[in-house]
Structure formats: structure tokens, C-alpha cells
């Protein structure tokens, strides 16, 4: 029963709704910083590390959004790559079809991709989220497969031959702006009354329902929002790689995102950010090992890591805590006065 008690304690750290948009300036400042860094990073950073950084940003968006479902709502979605592909294909189709390469057109394409993914999320979520148990896992996994099969059969996007010549519109600024927006939205959601509804669903569905939470609607909300951001991430991905192929979005892709969420801690936004950064880096850091041994152990290491993590530290590295809770008291006090008050 200890398992049940620990997160409950955590409910109390996600206190009363934050008054208004008091911390909005922090986020605006982060956005400004991203765009200030944009020029420097693009110009100065080595192409290889730039690539890693870009994929890391896309992975952060994916991991944080998936955490809304798998972490905060306690459901288990295994089809995040499917939503990513919907967004990626829709966005790429729009920008290649209309040959529009202005920032406004790009944002439109990305948002359309996100909305399409959200729509797909609604369709998949509505039937499967009503069910208890692990069925969602299989249904979302199946959805990922169905989407892949459908994409293979659409000639307009190249089928198995893939979609080429997507304009290279994704820049550092766009990727990390999306990261900031995603993290901000997730953080606002989790700390709102909707967010507490999600947490209550995770802790005990029956009790949540008894308290007047419409559990299906709460789950669906998290699921659709997660799908939306996955779709945006897909759009960024396509316009960075400039090539899309249905095979990219297979189950292994979803699995990678799941590992990020699990490693960071299911229910910790900053945990997902750190884990996404870490795993995006480590997969490249492990390459020298592969050059020496001539064998690629990476997926074996990943899967072993996942098992060992579950056996030894099932809550991930951060559990449900956020990074700020590990900061020294004086600093935390500055950044997040309420958090420090609660934990003392």
C-alpha cells in the first residue's frame, strides 16, 4: 500500500491554483532567450551537435506531452509516434503543397498538423479511454500501426517511398519556442483544477468519480492535448529532416518516448525534460562504443535500462517531483515561494 500513499502526499504539493499569470514573465523571458540564442547557436554550433540539440528539443516536446497522459493521468499510451506522424505528414503536406515558406505559413502548417493529431487523439481516445485497465496500451499501439498502414496507402504523400523535398523551415528558435510553450502549457494544466482532476484520476478512478470528476472527459482532455503537441513535434521533425517515411513512426519510436517519460519520472515535467535531453545525448554518446565493438548494443541497453529502472526505482529519477524541489531552499524561495513554504 506504500505505493499508493506516496503519490497522494504529492497531491498536496500541487497545491491551490496559482493566482493568474504571475509567472508569465519567466516564460516570456525564456522565449526571448531562445530567439536571442537562435542566431548564435545556428551560426556557431557544430552541425552534429546542432542536430542532436534539435532532436533533443523535439524529444522534450514529445516526452512532456506524453507525460500528461502516462504520468499525470496514469493511463498508458503507446502510440505517441502515431500522433507525431499525423502532425508531421499534415504539416509537411501543407508546406510542400502550397510552397509557402514564410514564418506565418510555417506556424499555420505546424498548428494544422497539431490540430489534425488532436483530432485523431479524440477519435482514438473517446472509445478507449472509457475502459479500465491496460486496453488503452494496446489500442494506442494498434492506432500507431493503423496510421502507418494508412500512410503507406496514400500516394499523395509517397506511400512507402516517403515524402521528399520538404522545405527546411525548422530552426533552433522554432524548436525551442515549442519546447517553452509545451512546458508552459503542461505546467499550467497540471497546476489548474483540470490538472488536479487528472491527478485524482491517476490516484483512484472510483474515488475521483465519486468526487464529481468526469473521469472520461478528464482523461480525454489530457490525451487530446498530448496528441496536439506530439503533432507539432512531428511537424518540426519533418521540416528538419526534410524527409518523412511511415517506417520512422513505428512502435520503437513510441517506445523511446515512453522511456524518456519513465526515466524522468511519471508525473514530473522537468523530469521529462531532463530525461529527454539525457537520452538524446546518450544515444550519440554510446556511438564510440559501437565503433569499437562493431555491434550496436543500444537497444539492448535501453530495454535493460527500462527493466532495471522499473525494478529498482519504479518512479523514475524524479518521481513526481519537479526539478525546483531539489534546489537549495534560498534559490527555490526566489523562484517558487509557495513550493518552499509547503515542503518546510
Amino acid at each position: 500500500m506504500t505505493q499508493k500513499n506516496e503519490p497522494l502526499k504529492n497531491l498536496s504539493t500541487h497545491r491551490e491554483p496559482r493566482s493568474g499569470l504571475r509567472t508569465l514573465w519567466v516564460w516570456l523571458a525564456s522565449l526571448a532567450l531562445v530567439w536571442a540564442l537562435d542566431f548564435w547557436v545556428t551560426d556557431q554550433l557544430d552541425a552534429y551537435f546542432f542536430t542532436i540539440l534539435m532532436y533533443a528539443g523535439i524529444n522534450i516536446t514529445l516526452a512532456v506531452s506524453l507525460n500528461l497522459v502516462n504520468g499525470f493521468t496514469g493511463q498508458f499510451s503507446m502510440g505517441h509516434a502515431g500522433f507525431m506522424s499525423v502532425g508531421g505528414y499534415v504539416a509537411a503536406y501543407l508546406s510542400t503543397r502550397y510552397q509557402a515558406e514564410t514564418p506565418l505559413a510555417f506556424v499555420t502548417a505546424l498548428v494544422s498538423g497539431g490540430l489534425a493529431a488532436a483530432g485523431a487523439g479524440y477519435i482514438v481516445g473517446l472509445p478507449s479511454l472509457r475502459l479500465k485497465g491496460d486496453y488503452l496500451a494496446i489500442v494506442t499501439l494498434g492506432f500507431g500501426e493503423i496510421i502507418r498502414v494508412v500512410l503507406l496507402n496514400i500516394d499523395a504523400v509517397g506511400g512507402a517511398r516517403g515524402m521528399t523535398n520538404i522545405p527546411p523551415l525548422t530552426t533552433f528558435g522554432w524548436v525551442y519556442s515549442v519546447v517553452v510553450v509545451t512546458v508552459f502549457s503542461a505546467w499550467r494544466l497540471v497546476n489548474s483544477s483540470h490538472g488536479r482532476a487528472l491527478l485524482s484520476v491517476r490516484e483512484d478512478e472510483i474515488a475521483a468519480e465519486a468526487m464529481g470528476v468526469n473521469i472520461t472527459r478528464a482523461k480525454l482532455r489530457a490525451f487530446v492535448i498530448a496528441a496536439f503537441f506530439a503533432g507539432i513535434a512531428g511537424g518540426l521533425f519533418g521540416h528538419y529532416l526534410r524527409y518523412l517515411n511511415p517506417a520512422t513512426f513505428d512502435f520503437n519510436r513510441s517506445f523511446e518516448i515512453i522511456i524518456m517519460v519513465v526515466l524522468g519520472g511519471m508525473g514530473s515535467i522537468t523530469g521529462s525534460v531532463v530525461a529527454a535531453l539525457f537520452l538524446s545525448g546518450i544515444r550519440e554518446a554510446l556511438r564510440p562504443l559501437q565503433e569499437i565493438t562493431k555491434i550496436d548494443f543500444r537497444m539492448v541497453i535501453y530495454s535493460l535500462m527500462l527493466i532495471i529502472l522499473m525494478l529498482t526505482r519504479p518512479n523514475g529519477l524524479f518521481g513526481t517531483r519537479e526539478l525546483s524541489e531539489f534546489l537549495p531552499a534560498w534559490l527555490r524561495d526566489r523562484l517558487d515561494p509557495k513550493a518552499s513554504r509547503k515542503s518546510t
Partner: protein
Amino acid sequence: MHSPVAFKFTNSLLIATLFLGLSPIGCKKKQVPQDTASGSAQTTSVGPIKIGEVGSMTGSEATFGTSTHNGIDLAIRQINAAGGVHGRMLELISLDDQGKPEEAATAVTKLITQNGVTAILGEVASSRSLAMAPIAQTHKVPMITPSSTNPKVTEQGDFIFRVCFIDPFQGTVMAKFALETLKIKKVAILRDIKNDYSVGLANYFAETFKKGGGEIVMDQSYGAGDIDFKSQLTSIRTKTPEAIFVPGYYTEVGLIARQARELGIKAPLMGGDGWDSPKLAEIGGKAIEGSYFSNHYSSEDQSPEIQTFIGKFKEAYGVVPDGLSAMGYDAARVLADAMTRAPSLDPQAIRDAIAATKDFAGVTGKITIDSNRNAVKAAVVLKVVGTQYKYQTTIQP
């Protein structure tokens, strides 16, 4: 329950390890970025010449990546044993892409900017080559793909080459063979819908075959990894085609042949170079006998290139080389040949030398690079007899 103090301690430990994990990357980022466009090759004029390879060594297409890698590896070893290029050894750096386009893109970026390779070999599949090509092109590093058949690959830029057929040619070869040599008019197609190579070949085959007066009586599909094809074959059986065109990989074709014979379909199967593997005859057994496929070369060919290649390959890896190994072997040798002819190891000079390749005596035929950077070479049609692939005819481009 943990005591709060111990709890904090373990957490900070974990976070410390996390950042330790990140730190090697953080440190490397501070390196002065090198000006890659000017070509990193000249910066090291001594020591080995670095050649990069990207391939699918793991994942669902690992078997193709491994075959290609063995071919490339053998070629590099032979060239080094013969004294290398310009008196310098070749060093092959192989990176795995797990069969994913984005991994291939990252890997090629690493090879170019971190390892400073002079040229790139890879990828097997067009889907990965298409993700790699724009990057090689931007950095102006010559890239030769051994077996990406999608015409779009070399359209990505003037530094991208291939040593294999393109889909339009190979599709035409089998269509012509069916019409002119086998003299048949009714063919059914069974394509691998998940595989870009198979879809491409099937489309071009159908186009040429119909133009030549033939009829495609049925166009069915399967997915790579399937093991049961009976429902497709039962439907095909009702149309009584004179041959079935199955432009897939040997991994599935063997089973397709078995099930076709089980259902009493006597018509021969036809396919492309994806069939070329000893596994085809092993898995297909008697069922695949009498079927035809187009290939780059015939292992019966007594020319010394082919016989040494087959002998050395068996010696090194203990198996008969398949078509992908032969193509990897040729890609590496075309590159080495171009580097030998090039006045310097400047990427532009190597590019020009590859583009000027003419009648290179490769294992997979006499290779000439045309103005679209595609290999122009004749195709042979082979017939499966027992466990041998017997030469039937040569079809010129």
C-alpha cells in the same frame, strides 16, 4: 519508507550521474566548429583516409545492412592489402542507423563533422539515403549509395551517386524479358507495400508491361515480415496468370513460392535483384525452381573479378555473398578507383573523378556513371535451377 535525508542524498546522486552523462556532450560542444564546407579531408594529409559508412546493422532491416557492410569491409581490406590509395590506407568508420531515416541523418552528420570522412558509402534503402543525401550535399562530401534504387536519391545533388540500377530500368528489364523471351501476356503482381523498392519496381514493371501489350491481371500486396500469403495467392490463382511478378526481398519470396506451389499455382515467379541471396533457394526449396529474376551479375560468370570476389567473400565470412554484398563491394571499389584517379583528395576532385567513372569492371557489371550520377550497366536475368542461379540473358540499358 526512506528517511528524508537519505532520500535527498540518493536523489542528488542520481541527478549528479545524469549530468555526468550529459557532460561529455557539453564539453565537446565547446570545440571550435570546423569549416566543413572547405572539406576536412585536407586537414590530415598523413594517416589513413577515412571513409564513412551508414547502414542498418540492427532493427528489422539489419540483415540487409549487414550484408552490405560485409561487402564494403571486404573491398576496403583488399584495397589496403594492395597498398591503399595514394600510398595511404583506407579506414572504414561504420555507423548504425537502426533502419531509421533520422538516425541515418544524424550518423552522416557525425561522420562528416566529427570523424572528418572524405566520402560516404550508404545507405542500402532509399528511405535512409534520401534523408542522408541533402546533408552530404550541403557539406559537399561525395556519397555513393550501393543499392538505393529510387530515382529521387541522386536528384538530391551533384555529390550523390549510386552503383545500382534505378527502379525504372530494372522494372523495364523484367517486363521486356516477360514479353520477349517468355512470350507471356498475363502477369499478376504481388508487391511489398511496406517497401519503397518493391513498390517502385512494381510500378515501372506494370507501366512497361502494359505498354508492350501485356495485361496485369491482378495487383496484390503484402507487408514485409508477413508469413502467410495464401489469401493473396488464392485470389491470384483465380485469374490464372502466366507468371507472378514479386519484386520483394528474398526474405519473403521463398515463402511466397512455397505457398504458391502448395496452392497448385504452376506459373513461374519473377523478381528483381532483391532476390539475390543463397537464402532464396534455401527457404524456397523446390518451389522456387524455374523462377526468374533480374540481377547485376551472374555468379557463374567466369570473369576473374567475380570469381575472386566470391572466393574471398566465402573465405572471410563463410557464406556465399548476396547481391547487396556485391553492391557494397563495388561501391567501395568505385570510390577507391575514383580517389586513385583524382589529382587530390579534395572532395570536389573526388566528386569529379566519380562522375567520370567509365567502364569500371565491377563485380556487378561494367559501371559507367551517367550525367544523372546513376550507374549505367547491363542487367542479367537468372533462372533458379536447383540451388543455382543460371544465366539466361543480358539486357542492355
